[in-house]
């Protein structure tokens, strides 16, 4: 039995995927150390790498309509191995939510309220996400298009306001990045903004028409990727080589907006839009975490465990990294390697086994 009874449609799914990918827009910075002014190239390459990977998620969900990944693992691998693999998913959801919560804490602590204790931001943000998750998947999906529309407008506006100080010679010389750095950068961008959408394996089961999901998910991924590309291009064109020295190039580039000394300090817009986008992404991750834990424990609803799980996540977020530098350094290696088997191979292998074992069997019986 699925713990979620609400249904969402494919258009809402498109906006959810776009908003989810956009939620990682700050994390493009992690790739700047490796590819510097060529980060835009890494973003484009990452979209190309992510499309087949994410298609494997949708193909798996389409083969098992109405089921979430925990149920699929039980069917494909059996109750014991299936649950072990499901624990890997849960571990990933738990850590990823804590990273996103930490991102918000660091954002506010570094740029907005440096004197306030970080635990306050972590707790306030996590409880807000828990409130959204408590309302269920449908309300979250219903606001997705508003979030995407606002973020798209703000990103476009910032780009246009910065056009006069952009220097496109900052992108030169082209193709001077070592191959290993480009691979590293693509690995970071593919894993974090794009493949974290593996959390949708807990959501695809709530689609009203799962068979139509592929097209909408891929377009959602491309739309979100376009925003990441816009941010990578904007930061390089505005900041040039100095891009690598800032904690948040997006904040620094937006601070340079000065239209007749009236329109200044627009970095506040970045703070607001980041909060909204990370809220949306973190809520979907918390939803995936709560439903997956409830599903593996065989609960009828995820609501009773939502608040205790959120509290554990707050402490995890507070202790997971020592500092923003530790956050960036760890993410660039251990942070992407630990999830690589899960993000790139596990759904594809599950799908392959399901095809070989001709699963799900009940579907075949109905057809015959």
């Amino acid at each position, binding site marked *: 039995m699925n713990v979620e009874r609400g249904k969402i449609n494919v258009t809402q799914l498109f906006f959810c995927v776009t908003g989810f990918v956009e939620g990682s827009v700050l994390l493009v910075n992690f790739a700047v150390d490796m590819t510097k002014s060529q980060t835009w190239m890494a973003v484009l390459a990452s979209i190309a790498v992510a499309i087949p990977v994410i298609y494997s998620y949708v193909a798996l969900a389409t083969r098992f309509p109405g089921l979430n990944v925990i149920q699929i693992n039980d069917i494909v691998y059996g109750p014991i191995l299936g649950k072990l693999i499901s624990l890997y998913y849960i571990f990933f959801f738990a850590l990823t939510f804590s990273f996103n919560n930490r991102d918000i804490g660091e954002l506010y602590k570094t740029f907005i309220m440096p004197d306030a204790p970080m635990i306050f931001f972590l707790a306030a943000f996590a409880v807000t996400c828990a409130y959204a998750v408590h309302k269920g998947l449908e309300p979250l999906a219903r606001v997705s298009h508003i979030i995407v529309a606002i973020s798209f407008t703000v990103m476009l506006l910032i780009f246009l306001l910065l056009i006069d100080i952009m220097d496109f010679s900052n992108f030169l010389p082209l193709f001077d990045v070592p191959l290993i750095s480009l691979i590293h950068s693509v690995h970071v961008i593919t894993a974090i903004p794009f493949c974290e959408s593996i959390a949708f394996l807990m959501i695809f089961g709530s689609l009203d028409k799962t068979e139509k999901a592929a097209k909408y998910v891929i377009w959602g991924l491309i739309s979100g990727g376009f925003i990441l590309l816009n941010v990578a291009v904007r930061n390089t064109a505005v900041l040039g080589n100095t891009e690598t020295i800032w904690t948040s190039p997006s904040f620094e580039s937006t601070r340079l907006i000065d239209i007749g000394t009236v329109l200044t300090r627009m970095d506040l817009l970045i703070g607001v839009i980041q909060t909204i986008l990370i809220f949306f992404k973190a809520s979907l991750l918390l939803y995936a975490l709560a439903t997956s834990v409830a599903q593996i424990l065989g609960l009828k609803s995820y609501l009773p465990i939502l608040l205790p799980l959120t509290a554990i996540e707050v*402490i995890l977020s507070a*202790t997971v990294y020592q500092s923003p530098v530790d956050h960036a350094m760890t993410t*660039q290696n251990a942070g992407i390697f630990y999830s690589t088997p899960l993000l790139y191979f596990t759904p594809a292998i599950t799908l392959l086994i399901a095809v070989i074992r001709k699963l799900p069997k009940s579907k075949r019986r109905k057809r015959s």
Partner: protein
Amino acid sequence: MIYVLTIYTLVAIINLPPLIKNGQKRELFAFIAFFIVAFVLSLLYAMDIEIPSPMEGLKYLIEDFMGLKYPEPK
């Protein structure tokens, strides 16, 4: 410390009665288990006792033990 105790008492007061009243034993046990873990972690954090990060363990396993690490960017 006082905040932790207040918040957790409130969470227990809000969540426990409906679970006991409806006889949802499995949900009740799951809630209590996670509640205890969360409460202990919060208490340790409030008392400034160091809680080990799972990323430290993963970092050791992946970077030091398995040697999976990209070269430092130039």
